[in-house]
């Protein structure tokens, strides 16, 4: 077997972040890039996610990322040459408490000031947007029609295929066992298949990024929580076209274009077991949410449940930066459940940072040093 001993850039992790970073670097002219994946492409958190894409956020940072990502997704098929399954049926946010509705409206004002045309809708309008909806107990709704969802598999594969055409190499079943450093600089990685020397190493390892960081001698406070999700058999379209989301209701539910309905929620107890198993408790809790919120799904069958890791940070915002103490070691992790939707934009911004350019959306505040300084950027809008 041929084994490359060197590369200009090593990317660890072939989820949407790693594939987008590799593609964007190659597009900007970097020649010798290798992406290492311990499983297969898109086998980690990206391929397990709820697939949502939204600009309805509660901090300026996330609104800017969200809108830029929506705009990227809108032209991704053309750019990458592969359909990414984009479906812009909007996000319908549901508030059950007055304080929650006030927060949604406060976020809406911020969104509107940044060019995101979120609006308050009445219950009647909400039922037009989502014909299966039963939410008499809700106090208010906001809606942004450019939000929606895309296929996480196809999006990641599209980035990989486009990157391959630009010369990027992808190595599956290749697990990083050490990150080598010399005098405050990254020097390469060791893997289960051999070593690769490289002046730039990117940590895009999702749920395992804190372990990769530790190998390089970089401490980040990230933790991985197991979240669960289910999908039904396909039924007629139009039951739940938008992403239906509520923070106090603790759910997100959307119907894929071919008819199956996906739903997830935040788990009780926030398990950090790295076991990607399934629980009966989730199945029962989520099924209750479905039949209450979308009564016409009573007779619809669940075909599969699965789980994935949310890589959480203390303020639920990502770590996107170069390490202070290890030059050439970059991090793109800690997306806290929204890494898929930000992939197209964070990949471009990190590629700019790696090449010494000024990222076109400032990302200075996403350095992990904010946790030590206590300058958290707390995001209120997370399920």
């Amino acid at each position, binding site marked *: 077997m041929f084994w490359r001993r060197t590369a200009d850039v090593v990317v660890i992790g072939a989820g949407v972040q790693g594939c987008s970073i590799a593609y964007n670097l190659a597009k900007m002219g970097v020649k010798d890039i290798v992406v290492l994946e311990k499983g297969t492409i898109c086998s980690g958190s990206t391929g397990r996610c709820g697939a949502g894409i939204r600009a309805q956020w509660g901090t300026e940072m996330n609104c800017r990322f969200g809108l830029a990502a929506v705009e990227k997704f809108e032209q991704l098929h053309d750019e990458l040459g592969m359909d990414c399954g984009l479906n812009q049926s909007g996000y319908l946010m549901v508030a059950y408490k007055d304080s929650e509705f006030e927060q949604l409206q406060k976020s809406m004002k911020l969104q509107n000031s940044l060019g995101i045309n979120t609006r308050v809708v009445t219950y009647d309008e909400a039922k037009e947007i989502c014909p299966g909806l039963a939410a008499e107990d809700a106090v208010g709704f906001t809606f942004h029609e450019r939000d929606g969802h895309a296929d996480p598999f196809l999006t990641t594969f599209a980035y990989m295929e486009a990157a391959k055409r630009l010369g990027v190499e992808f190595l599956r079943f290749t697990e990083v066992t050490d990150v080598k450093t010399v005098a405050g600089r990254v020097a390469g990685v060791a893997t289960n298949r051999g070593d690769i020397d490289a002046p730039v190493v990117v940590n895009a390892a999702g749920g395992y990024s804190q372990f990769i960081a530790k190998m390089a001698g970089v401490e980040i406070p990230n933790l991985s929580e197991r979240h669960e999700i289910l999908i*039904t058999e396909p039924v007629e379209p139009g039951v739940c076209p938008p992403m239906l989301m509520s923070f106090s209701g603790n759910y997100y539910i959307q119907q894929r274009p071919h008819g199956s309905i996906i739903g997830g929620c935040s788990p009780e107890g926030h398990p950090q077991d790295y076991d990607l198993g399934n629980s009966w408790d989730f199945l029962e809790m989520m099924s209750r949410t479905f039949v209450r919120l979308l009564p016409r799904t009573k007779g619809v069958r669940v075909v599969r449940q699965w789980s994935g890791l949310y890589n959480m940070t203390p303020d639920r915002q990502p770590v996107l930066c170069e390490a202070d103490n290890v030059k050439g070691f970059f991090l793109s992790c800690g997306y806290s459940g929204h890494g898929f939707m930000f992939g197209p934009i964070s990949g471009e911004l990190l590629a700019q940072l790696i090449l010494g350019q000024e990222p076109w959306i400032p990302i200075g505040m996403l350095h992990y040093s904010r946790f030590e300084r206590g300058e958290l950027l707390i995001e209120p809008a997370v399920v």
Partner: protein
Amino acid sequence: MAGKNEDIIICRCEEVTLGEIREWIEKGYETFDELKRVLRVGMGPCQGRGCREMILREISAKTKVPVADIHPGTFRPPAKPVKLAVLAEGGDK
């Protein structure tokens, strides 16, 4: 003749043909889970009961690895589709 076989539907739930499966195996999607993610084979109501064996044989034909040594992909609950209303009623703990 070959063309005719290529049109055979292997995954009936998601309507994926033999030709599509061979095309993606050729592109390097050589495990069941990779084919599942790119083509959705085995993701429908039967969860791969109809297509899994045939797809593993196609992977074997390309990679020359015996079917018995190929990872069959991940199996997830429920074992058969169950109505949401039944699940919502709960069960004995």
